[in-house]
């Protein structure tokens, strides 16, 4: 596939992520922070997000698996996940976290377990999407092309 075609594919794909709510304007900010001095910034941050989130999700699973669930702890984790997902621009994950936190306040085990599943699902979805997108970018760069800037009318 030639570069132009790849670029178009990337643009369309990225746009769809925004349209479907996987990503929000914050992600655009990250993309704008990337420059020549730091050409892999987005990749680095996203990788960091993946690592951190997976750790958090593990902690959450363990915390909710306890006989006596410590909701405060759970809430702290969720809050953290909410913060990092919002900083990255992973909108759907963030929204799932918000719902999660309200159930934590209620100390509703069932609801929180359900929320955990929801958050995990959203997380894996966005992870998959981001990885695909980044891969596309890599291919373009490898083929000598440049990554087109997405202009979204937010």
């Amino acid at each position, binding site marked *: 596939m030639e570069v132009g075609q790849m670029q178009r594919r990337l643009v369309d794909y990225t746009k769809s992520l925004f349209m479907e709510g996987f990503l929000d304007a914050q992600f655009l900010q*990250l993309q704008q*922070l990337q420059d020549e001095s730091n050409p892999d910034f987005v990749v680095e941050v996203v990788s*960091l997000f993946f*690592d*951190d989130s997976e750790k958090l999700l593990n902690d959450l699973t363990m915390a909710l698996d306890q006989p006596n669930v410590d909701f405060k702890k759970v809430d702290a984790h969720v*809050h953290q996940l909410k*913060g*990092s997902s919002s900083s990255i621009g992973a909108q759907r994950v963030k929204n799932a976290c918000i719902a999660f936190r309200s159930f934590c306040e209620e100390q509703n085990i069932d609801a929180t377990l359900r929320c955990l599943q929801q958050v995990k699902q959203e997380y894996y979805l966005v992870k998959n999407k981001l990885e695909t997108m980044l891969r596309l970018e890599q291919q373009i760069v490898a083929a000598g092309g440049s990554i087109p800037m997405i202009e979204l009318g937010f």
Partner: protein
Amino acid sequence: MNVSSVKGSMSISSSTSTWKAGDTISDQFPAGLRVLVVDDDPTCLMILEKMLIACLYKVTKCNRAETALSKLRENKNGYDIVLSDVHMPDMDGFKLLEHIGLEMDLPVIMMSADDGKQVVMKGVTHGACDYLIKPVRIEALKNIWQHVVRKRKNEWKEFEQSGSVEEGDRQPKQSDDADYSSSANEGNWKGSKKRKDEEEETDERDDTSTLKKPRVVWSVELHQQFVAAVNQLGIDKAVPKKILELMNVPGLTRENVASHLQKYRLYLRRLSGVSQHQSNLSTIISAQDPTFGSLSSLSGLDLQTLAATGQLPAQSLARLQAAGLGRATAKSGIPITLVDQRNIFSFENPKLRFGEGQQQHMTNKQQVNLLHGIPTTMEPKQLVSLRHAAQSIGNMNMQVPPHGAQSSQNNPLLMQMGQQQQQQQQSRGQILVDSTINHAPRLSSSMGQPILSNGIATNVSSRNGIPENIRAPGYSQTPSMLNFPMNHASELPGNSFALGSTPGVSILTSKGAFQEDVNSEIKGSGGLMPSYDVFNDLDQHKPQSWELQNVGMAFDTSQHSNSLQGNLDLTQSALGQQGFSSGQMNGHNRSAAVASKAMFSTGDVKELGSAQNVNQHLNNLLVDNTIRVKSERVCDTSPANIFPDHFGQDDLMSALLKQQESVASSENEFDFDGYSMNNIPV
């Protein structure tokens, strides 16, 4: 980025108390600001670091509160500001905040994805200087340096008990700079923008100095004192030092006086063009004085708003206020012009002079806008109405203001004229009002540009005999408003528009003219002569023009928005919307003038309301006026038909048209030569 150099120059190592303005503050500030960011979330930490680097700050990051504290303790003066997350595993962010406050007394900004009121309140009670909600955007980080400066400033102030001296010196300087820039930009569409830029620059300088004193506001009394001192010394011999001595106002510095004097001189120069008319006008105006008084009240509000919006430099505002307030009972700042306009139209009496009265009379907000912009021409009637309205003038930066003393009457109108232009216009407007009103929408006044006044003045004179120079508001004691010897309206032949006489009329016409001009010119062309064009356009333009007119008048737009600030924008937008301006304005230069005037109008939101009314009146008036205007058209710039077309208001237009038919065009009284209709609040 010379972070290192900045740092070095900052010599922050010295105690903050010794960090005074001008000290080590390099021009690169806030670049190089040393930030310590603490967050246990690695993703957030990385993003924040990158953003802070992008802001040219020097960043140190920690993911633990303990680490952060130890770093701070090691190097007490190594950091300028701390950014900390609220929820951290090892230590609560608020606890960290307390520690830092006690031990190092650095400004701390809290961050969190949590935006609950309680949490934010906790931040406040624990002494955080700000609270950012995650996700943090880079724009939010760009401004964090303000907290550093603020803190230092407060410390410095405490340290330096009197501190007034240095601060005083610094502050006037800055204000002067800003003022200067603003005055320079007067009558220039870009001016407002420029001014903002300049203000930003000065702000930055202020930061470095840490001591930023509020600008000196030239109140009415202060200005009057100033004028008295200048007159006593003689304008040629008036030097800041002597003026300062004569004024004997504590806290006022030579620099304040110097910058004010500079503006005053500019104002005088503008007036000189119409000085000849002024004398005539002054007489007329004086008769009107009572009415103007109200105008002068230019709604200090408007003025202030204008000033606030930056459109109107503080000084001009002060002037306006002085001018307007001097006399007027500050009716409500309404866009008197607007009111006047309407009045003008409605009555043909010269009262309308300015939009001042516009508000009152010109109930047609729409029209009023016209007046706003064009403080001058409409004057006669408007003036009258302005008087009542007076208040609105605030918007008009009536140029006259400073000189307002004299024209206190006029001032109201002038003031309203619009911020930058207003200044010019005011003088003009006033003058115009007087003179123009009688004849034809002299709009010239404020329409903002000095040219107008001059142009108008000349035009006016030729036409009506009414000293069009009146436009040159200001200083010549004859209130610029005088130009609209509204009372003389009776003199004016049927001037319903009485540009000269009937403030309302003239205003209307001017409005139209201005409006058009404004619209087209809003771009900042101080096109002096727009007023005439306005008129021309008026004929041509039907109702739409009014809208455009408003641009200049800005009143219209502002009406709705009620924000002076918006005025300028409004005018511009109005222009755009109206689209009229460009088309309508018969290519007259009005636009420039108008545009500037339009600016005013925005300022006078109140006026706008009246503008509407005014507009209607205007329409009526226009009709009459247009006829007249046309005949008059002395102005070089453009046919006096400005009005008819500009009034954008449909009703106005129709009314005008009707009137036109009915009105005999004999009146050549309306010389809207170049009266920037801008002021016509439409």
